[in-house]
């Protein structure tokens, strides 16, 4: 069952077609990875899905709903969460506060009830805290709860970024290069978490990655992009053996 489909997706940046005629679909419960050289348009696709960019052509459907024109702040409410390649956490806030913002799409807001901190607000706050604590347990972030982001090392920030996305209780999570900047041990942890996300939490994963080891370990299907266009599409084994892909990205024998 397709959770997400992209049909003929394309975007122009003043004459440069960053993404051109991309078609793919993601089945519910699978882990789908997009790979390709730098500048191929992978993060651009993410930005298109989270509606930070407007597509020039094409359509995107999520859960049966056309999301091509949806405003960016409604995406989280629909069940799509994402992490950012260069970590877009809230620097001056604590880990806990960052994670709580992840719950924003499930909160009803009214400044008067909040200003007076009515019992309903209190109850909601405590409920959100419970949910956030589940994620903290899942990712082993207990030690860092009260730390400000700007004092944390890179590896921990990446985990918090993941946690924040998980707090929105998404159906589909977009992970942008989850292992970049991580050492071998942290990458292992990350691959276990991605597996857990898929199997235990039942969340569908869409990933951009460069680490081929991680890709073969966790992905069900792979899409290869080059210069904004699709190059190959299939299981990790098929894609890794595709001669075009090897030429463009993976690197073959030198003649």
């Amino acid at each position, binding site marked *: 069952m397709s959770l997400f489909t992209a049909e003929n997706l394309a975007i122009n940046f003043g004459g440069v077609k960053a993404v051109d005629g991309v078609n793919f679909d993601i089945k519910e419960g699978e882990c789908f990875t997009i790979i390709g050289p730098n500048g191929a348009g992978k*993060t651009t696709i993410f*930005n298109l899905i989270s509606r*930070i960019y407007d597509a020039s052509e094409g359509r995107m459907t999520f859960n049966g709903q056309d999301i091509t024109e949806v405003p960016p702040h409604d995406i989280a409410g629909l069940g799509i969460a994402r992490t*950012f*390649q*260069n970590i*877009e956490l809230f620097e001056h806030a604590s880990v806990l506060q960052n994670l709580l913002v992840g719950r924003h799409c499930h909160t009803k807001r009214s400044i008067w009830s909040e200003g007076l901190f009515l019992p309903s607000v209190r109850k909601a706050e405590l409920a959100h805290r419970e949910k956030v604590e589940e994620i903290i347990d899942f990712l082993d972030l207990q030690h860092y709860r009260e730390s400000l982001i700007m004092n944390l090392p890179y590896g921990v920030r990446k985990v918090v970024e993941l946690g924040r996305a998980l707090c929105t209780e998404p159906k589909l999570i977009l992970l942008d290069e989850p292992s970049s900047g991580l050492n071998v041990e942290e990458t292992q942890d990350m691959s276990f978490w991605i597996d857990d996300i898929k199997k235990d939490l039942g969340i569908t994963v869409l990933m951009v990655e460069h680490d081929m080891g991680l890709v073969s370990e966790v992905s069900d299907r792979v899409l290869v992009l080059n210069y904004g266009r699709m190059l190959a599409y299939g299981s990790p084994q098929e894609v890794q053996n595709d001669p075009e892909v090897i030429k463009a990205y993976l690197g073959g024998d030198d003649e």
Partner: protein
Amino acid sequence: MSIGCIYALVALGFVLIYKATEVVNFAQGELLMLGAFFAYTFITLFGWNYWIGAAAAIGCMFFVGNLVDRVVLRPVLGQPQFAIVMVTIGFGYVARSVAGMIPGWGTETYAIETPFSSEGMQLIPESMGTLVVAQTDLSVIVATILLCIVLYLFFTYTKLGLAMQASSQNQLASYYMGIPVKSVFSMIWGISAAVAAAAGILLAPTTLIDANMGFIGLKAFPAAVLGGFGSIPGAVVGGIIIGIIETLAGFYLPPGVKNVAAYVVLLVVLVVRPQGLFGEKTGKRV
């Protein structure tokens, strides 16, 4: 029109600093005021010739600008933009007060003698019609044009101009490339202060010199915004347009509108076309 040129000059100095260091200098008007005061000191108090005095004042302000950057701006360089803006505001206060305290300056209003009279001059022969411009105004316009040409040549064709652009976009990388970023910044401040001084000297015959004359610097904002914040020709064009709009507003619209016309224009520009006439649209890549 000539007041537009003054705005243009102030905006020019302002945009120079912004383009190079991304600092918004709220004290640009105060630099103008100090320049005018220096000129006053040289020309009237010391009795020097107008041209020598003006040149000396501009030269002095170059050093003052340089100094301000070293002493006031360098210590706060890595901080968020907001903090730096506050520092320039603070400096503005200090400059205003200090000007009031220096013996011979104080809070009085002064004038300087210029070789330009306020008589009108016929610009084109009688047969074609009348285009009368006061000599003082004409001097302003001519000076502005000359300054713009000089600065344009400087930035386009010298290594220093390129260095300034690099430093403004990524300080750390510029350091690695061997650019003495701090000195470059100080130079920019110096040039900007010198331009402000020129504006002050040109303004003096029209509005007289006093410690509060720096407030005219606030009009640099609408000019810079209209022209586009990172664009030097934009600042000049913006200043002239604002000057024209103000004069027209003074003629045709009820009193009081003239004062705010510039700001209304600013708001309209920000809403309709935030990058101004010549600016560039920038966004973040995620």
